[in-house]
């Protein structure tokens, strides 16, 4: 019995592992190999290039600064919402995660409309202060970190909020019973216990900021970061150098990952869930009013980008120049989107590519998660590594790897021509979302009692029937949640797309960028609103699907 189980594990595991080796590992190996195609030539070129030094340094500075900025917003907000009760708390809680709902490029252009040189807020401040020129310019490292802080603090907020919710309230009580003051409790008990959540979210922000493309691309000005540098080298035909830069970017990410693991090395405990403590009502009337005012301002700051994109989507292209707000409004932008086939094309492209990628994610990640959770076989460790690997590789590096690998038909070396076809972008989306979907499904399966599978088979059910009636239902919440996340990120994907797209398969994000370059702000905003709408639609669809089944 045991041996047939093992053989059967390998029967599923072999194709899954092979597929992941081919799509996840092979392209990266190709990039590294490509960087050495003329010995150390490209590496010497990289080492001698001041532009590349600047790019590497700037990337690291932006990533670290984004981590600190996100922590500075996310941690206090999590404490405020998790520990205190005040008028407006529910509203603030509801919009606190809103920035995460903005596709990366949309967040960037929303900031452009608000805080750019001719943005709404900039103009208002300029008018109020009676200045000749804009009070600031949305350019450089500061601007990039500003946008990152807005979109990425959500990770910190969610991790720390979850940590606070799981926080065993009696630990706090025990400390106070032993005579510890509020400050001593925070410093010696609460914060140390939240460190895992803080470190985990900080790592997530670091990785995202390091691979971030849209903010540096739009706000960078003359600033170089590694991800934009890679695209520039590729566009200029300096492929060897692009491979070196990609390798350096991936290595930086892995180094960051290892650094965080090392910092968190001593932890052996997990927070036990025994019910968080009750939120404390703010008693002082004055503090209550101040808190509510602050909450209201945060709510406005969080919602404003969304509102601004919606507003600009009704603005007539080219009419908004020096005014505080766009002067003319029209439905024209939307009408053209739905009526002109060239403008409609990116929408069908994005939707179909996202669906293909998500379907592949669901099948492959379900099998992988099933094997990881329930089977003991020799390749399990390898499979776990393969599934997590895309997470540690910045999307630009993934994209460049695909460009380097699937650019020719050569069955002998396992290459097929996908670059320039429809399939290359879904493949990139698929790879990027593997860790997300796999961990969601794993999470669901781990909640299932492992003996259920044995029980089903003991009752005479075939493997397929067991899969269909026992395993799949257990995996369903993870499949729905993971599939939704995959579809949402794929439909708005920008970073890999910008490396791999062609005119015929261009996704919405590329079209937004093109419209922006043509100063057609209204059309760009209309696409953005459509994208947000698509994300909303998918979320509602997933929810109703889950409710119907549950």
């Amino acid at each position, binding site marked *: 019995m045991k041996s047939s189980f093992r053989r059967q594990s390998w029967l599923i595991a072999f194709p899954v592992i092979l597929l992941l080796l081919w799509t996840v590992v092979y392209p990266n190996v190709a990039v590294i190999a490509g960087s050495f195609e003329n010995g150390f030539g490209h590496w010497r070129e990289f080492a001698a290039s001041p532009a590349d030094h600047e790019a590497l340094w700037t990337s690291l500075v932006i990533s670290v600064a984004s981590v600190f900025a996100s922590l500075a917003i996310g941690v206090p907000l999590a404490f405020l919402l998790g520990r205190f009760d005040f008028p407006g708390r529910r509203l603030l809680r509801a919009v606190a995660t809103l920035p995460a709902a903005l596709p990366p490029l949309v967040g960037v252009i929303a900031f452009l409309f608000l805080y750019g040189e001719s943005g709404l807020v900039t103009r208002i401040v300029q008018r109020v202060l009676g200045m000749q020129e804009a009070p600031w310019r949305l350019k450089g490292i500061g601007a990039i970190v500003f946008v990152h802080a807005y979109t990425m603090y959500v990770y910190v907020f969610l991790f720390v909020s979850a940590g606070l919710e799981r926080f065993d309230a009696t630990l706090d*009580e025990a400390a106070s*019973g032993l005579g510890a003051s509020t400050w*001593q409790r925070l410093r010696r*008990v609460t914060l140390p216990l939240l460190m895992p959540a803080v470190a985990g979210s900080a790592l997530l922000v670091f990785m995202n900021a390091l691979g971030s493309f849209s903010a540096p691309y739009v706000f960078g000005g003359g600033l170089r970061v590694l991800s934009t540098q890679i695209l520039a080298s590729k566009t200029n035909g300096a492929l060897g150098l692009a491979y070196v830069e990609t390798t350096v970017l991936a290595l930086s990410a892995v180094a960051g990952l290892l650094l965080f693991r090392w910092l968190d090395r001593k932890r052996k*405990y997990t927070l036990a869930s025994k019910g968080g403590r009750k939120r404390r009502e703010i008693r002082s009337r004055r503090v209550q009013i101040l808190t509510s005012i602050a909450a209201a301002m945060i709510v406005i700051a969080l919602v404003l980008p969304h509102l601004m994109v919606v507003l600009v989507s009704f603005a007539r292209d080219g009419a908004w120049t020096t005014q505080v707000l766009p002067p003319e409004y029209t439905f024209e932008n939307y009408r053209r989107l739905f009526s002109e086939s060239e403008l409609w094309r990116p929408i069908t492209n994005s939707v179909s590519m996202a669906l293909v990628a998500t379907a592949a994610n669901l099948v492959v990640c379900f099998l992988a998660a099933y094997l990881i959770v329930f089977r003991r076989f020799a390749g399990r460790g390898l499979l776990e590594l393969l599934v997590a690997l895309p997470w540690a590789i910045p999307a630009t590096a993934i994209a460049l790897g695909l460009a380097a690998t699937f650019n020719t038909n050569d069955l002998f070396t396992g290459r097929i021509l996908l670059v320039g076809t429809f399939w290359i972008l879904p493949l990139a989306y698929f790879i990027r979302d593997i860790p997300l979907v796999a961990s969601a499904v794993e999470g669901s399966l781990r909640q299932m009692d492992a003996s259920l599978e044995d029980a089903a088979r003991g009752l005479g059910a075939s493997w397929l029937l067991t899969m269909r009636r026992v395993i799949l239902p257990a995996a369903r919440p993870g499949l729905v949640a993971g599939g939704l996340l995959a579809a949402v990120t794929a439909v708005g994907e920008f970073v890999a797309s910008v490396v791999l797209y062609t005119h015929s398969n261009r996704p919405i994000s590329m079209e937004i960028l093109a419209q922006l370059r043509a100063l057609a702000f209204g059309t760009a905003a209309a696409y953005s609103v459509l994208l947000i709408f698509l994300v909303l639609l998918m979320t509602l669809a997933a929810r109703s699907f889950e409710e119907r089944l549950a």
Partner: protein
Amino acid sequence: MTAAPQARDGAGVLALNGVSRRFGEFAAVDDVSVEVGPGELLALVGASGSGKTTTLRIAAGYEQPDAGTVTLGGVDITRVPPERRGFGMVFQHYALFPHMPVEGNVAFGLEARGVSKAERLEKALTALTSVGLGGAGDRAIQSLSGGEQQRVALARALVIEPRALLLDEPLSNLDPTLRQAMRDDLRAMLRRVGVPALFVTHDQEDAFAIADRIALLKKGRLLQVGTPEELYEAPESREVAAFIGRGTMVPAIDRGTTASVTIGGRMHELKVNRPKGMSLPYGKAFVVLRPEALELVGQGGNSAWTGRVVNRRFAGGVIVYRVELAGGVTVDVESASGNAHEDDNVAVSPTKGPFPIVPE
């Protein structure tokens, strides 16, 4: 083991005076008054939802009573926050800090008081030694067994030289064998500290084994306070009699020092026991027939209650028979002999009084 002072100087009586705590419409604690003297062990006993934990949390300062006061040595401490009360608390799940080693946990209360590192490590070692864990200072909390965690929690509470000790279900997380052993240890350790000790338990066996006095709570109200013997032998009400010990309550006519009980047409005049200071006689009353107060007699006993054995259970040294008496009353009878079997017809005689009597 180091010798701790028997009755600490300045240790005063811990008293709850008519405390109440409501959560919305629900009265968790309703006008409860208890006093615990220095060196005394008082158990708050009750089913879940009886308000015993809320009462303990009021004593500790984690809950504020809506009415009533908490005093220590006559000083009102109702509004003193937990961090300034100087009480030692042992939580049900111990609430040990998972990110600190054993000695860090034990020394934390001293750290909060600004004690120097050398001194607090020395005191932590002394406290750990006193609970039999002298060598465990640098171990991780996760590596400890349940019993060891419980000792660490106790050492952590003792090292701050508490003015009172509060324990929330101190034995509930231990497995049954360990539990028996820890009862005696805990009692000895609490006794040595010499301060008022208040502990919560839902297990009357624990309460009997450890406490000097028991306060029985039901639905937030205090039913009775007394020594274990008083609660067992002279319960004040049907509720106390039903909660403490086993037994069957049967209607009786109270005649003062005796009461007459009629079952299946046969009347017995039983000597009864009632709490001191209770008015007598009760109008309508119930007598508690405890298993050890009844006896199986041969079928020939002329005044005995007759019945049929419906269940026979060996309980270590004695046999417990469940007997369905004529008249529909079911009683448990403890007997040294195992001669009777299920479905046998037997006679039961109430021989070993006095019997507890409670008003309806």
